């Protein structure tokens, strides 16, 4: 937000009519400056003032939507350089490449991968997001056929890649309703691609030879009324590509430099031939500011770590990830298997369940809702105490699953043992290990 409340106030009608929902123009101006209300709530603005304020209150990196409907991918809209300052908003779209030089079987195989490689983790589904459809032969008919195949073969969002605008136009025709990202405007095809972009309403990637040239092009696009822009600085060596990401983000956020205030696209697939190296370059761009990351292929061994890395970096640092309260069955437990309890901070859950799993001992793990706090913190905050644990477990239905009445509590809340026993008459409360690393020996020695 470039304007202060007072600066905004000077532009308002100053009638204090109250139509915006707050009693005075000044109050409205303050709320607008703080990002707490929307410009459109005041119906009495001249066109000129509206444009001026809209520009000033637009986010420093514009959000861009690729695709249509529920499945659409939103990128950009970022507001910070470092995730602890607020959070990173929209995770980068992970993209698999298909080209019109690939055989039918190869294309099919890739579409199958993007469809069949989602992962479940802490109650979320992690998956790749886009297919980049690239014209390598220059043949428009082949490109159209490939675009059709992709449209029919997957729900993933689409990037259409060709240097020739007429080829892109044919591709757009094939999958217009999917609102694909057009790649790419350059200084050579400018007029034609602006026309295609306006006609189709699709988002547009811009490719330049440097960050400077990129800024010139996006200013021209802005003047032509195009705002759904994705930036490619053109760098294909890792060093320059990273520098460009850092420069673009910093210019947009620290200098409010509008011509670079858009999400970016990077191409690890063109930076190395080694798929392992490509994967770590992609991980680097997850942390450092890419909006879309195009990979040459997807394989479980690299896609899975990459998707989890993305989940981690884009986690809201102010709001811990949680696991749902309930009974989790690990290693196929039966009515004699031990019962353990832990907090619902998702990291705690991941570590504890992972240790139980590797112990190979069948076990029930009861995850108690502690509002995402760890065992120690939630206990200190009174959210993991005897009453709440006791009643949650007794109500959970676990007694229908086990014959015994024994509960293993985390070593860190050993002091709570007697109190829990009081809440759960007839139960034996056993103090388990403090450290997750000690769960395996504990469970192995445990006699229910």
């Amino acid at each position, binding site marked *: 937000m470039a304007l202060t409340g007072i600066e905004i106030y000077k532009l308002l009608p100053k009638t204090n009519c109250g139509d915006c929902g707050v009693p005075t123009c000044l109050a409205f101006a303050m709320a607008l400056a703080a990002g707490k209300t929307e410009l459109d709530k005041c119906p009495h603005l001249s066109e000129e003032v509206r444009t001026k304020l809209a520009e000033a209150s637009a986010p420093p990196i514009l959000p861009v939507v690729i695709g249509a409907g529920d499945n659409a991918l939103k990128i950009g809209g970022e507001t910070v350089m470092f995730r602890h300052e607020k959070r990173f908003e929209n995770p980068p779209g992970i993209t698999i490449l298909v080209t019109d030089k690939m055989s039918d079987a190869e294309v099919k195989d890739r579409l199958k991968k993007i469809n069949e490689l989602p992962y479940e983790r802490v109650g979320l589904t992690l998956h790749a997001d886009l297919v980049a459809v690239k014209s390598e032969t220059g043949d428009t008919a082949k490109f159209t056929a490939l675009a059709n195949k992709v449209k029919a073969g997957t729900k993933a969002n689409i990037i259409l890649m060709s240097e020739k605008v007429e080829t892109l136009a044919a591709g757009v025709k094939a999958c217009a309703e999917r609102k694909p990202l057009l790649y790419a405007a350059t200084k050579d095809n400018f007029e034609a691609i602006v026309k295609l972009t306006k006609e189709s309403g699709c988002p547009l990637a811009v490719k330049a030879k440097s960050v400077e040239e990129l800024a010139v092009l996006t200013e021209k696009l802005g003047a032509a009324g195009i705002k759904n822009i994705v930036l490619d600085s053109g760098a294909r060596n890792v*060093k320059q590509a990273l520098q460009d990401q850092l420069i673009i983000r*910093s210019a947009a956020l*620290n200098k409010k430099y509008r011509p670079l205030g858009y999400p970016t696209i990077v191409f690890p697939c063109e930076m190395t031939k080694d798929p392992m190296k490509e994967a770590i370059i992609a991980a680097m761009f997850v942390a450092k500011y890419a909006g879309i990351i195009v990979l040459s292929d997807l394989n*479980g*061994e690299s896609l899975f*770590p990459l998707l989890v890395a993305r989940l981690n970096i884009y986690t809201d640092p102010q709001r811990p990830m949680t696991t749902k309260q309930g009974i989790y069955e690990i290693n196929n437990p039966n009515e004699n298997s031990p019962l353990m309890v832990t907090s619902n901070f998702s*990291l705690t859950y991941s570590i504890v369940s992972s240790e139980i799993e590797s112990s190979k001992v069948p076990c029930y793990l009861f995850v108690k809702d502690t509002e995402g706090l760890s065992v120690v913190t939630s206990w200190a905050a009174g959210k993991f105490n005897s009453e709440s644990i006791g009643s949650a477990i007794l109500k959970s239905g676990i007694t229908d699953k086990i014959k015994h009445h024994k509960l293993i509590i985390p070593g860190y809340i050993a002091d709570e043992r007697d109190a829990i026993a009081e809440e759960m008459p007839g139960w034996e409360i056993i103090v388990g290990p403090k450290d997750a690393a000690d769960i395996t020996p504990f469970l192995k020695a445990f006699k229910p």
Partner: protein
Amino acid sequence: MAFEIPRTTYSGKIREVTAGKGESALTVGGETAFPFYLFEGQMPHLPRLAMEVYDSPPSDWPEAAVEPFKDVINDPVNWAKKCVKEYGAEMICLQLTSTDPNGENRPADKAAEIVKKVADAVSVPLIVWGTANHDKDVEVLSAAAEMCRDRNFILGPVEEGDHKQIGAAAKEFNHIIAAATPIDINLAKQLNILLGNLGVPDDKLIIDPTVSGIGYGIEYCYSAMERMRIAALTQQDTKLQFPIIANIAREAWKTKEARISEKENPKMGEAKRRGILLEAMSATLLLMAGADILVMRHPDALRLVKELIKDLAG
């Protein structure tokens, strides 16, 4: 609007710390900008890659992690040699797991002998790592420090509970301290102040922020490290202007995701490459957050990250 490259105003610099002795000594630190923000400042010493060596054969490693060391797994001296000669380790991190009082409980003097043998066998700087049991680490690291005086090892993890004793030994026998705190900028600063008060010189201190791997809370140490660098470089926080060591390999390999076979879960892909990538990708993220020394395990992960650093420095 003409484009001008934006520049952050930096007011601080990371200190340079030199580990090892003589020709094979290596310096880390010295950065004048955020990690790899080379358009704004310098990284005069690129991040260095250490390789782990264990003083007793690990029992719980996935097959893929054991395989490169099969022939030397019972022999820390040859293990270290192999890491340096064949795999290009720039430092060796000797993990003294055998000293764990809850395990083998090898006595301090025996452990120190192994440290000396390894130090004599390789020319690269040595990082000597205890088991984070305060009483035992005081004995073990002090004994190693004395037996190998003036060799300028990095000793860790030095925590609040044992910093006085290990700090004194490091000072007396001329070694470097890796000050370890649990993922928190203020605790890190506090321990650095305590060590400073004890007389540990500023060029003999590095920060161990306590790291974890992808899927197991890497975002916490990532942000803690970023905040340390921001404080050090832009807020003149002199007590955080130290190089950072990330003991990442063991975190990446102990996860169930590094273990699970392709047969058990075909969607997770080939187990060996997955393990290597969990290590290398975790290391890559920590590089972006400010790691100066990364402790690595698998030679392929080391190679990948080394190449990346070379590319990034260009």
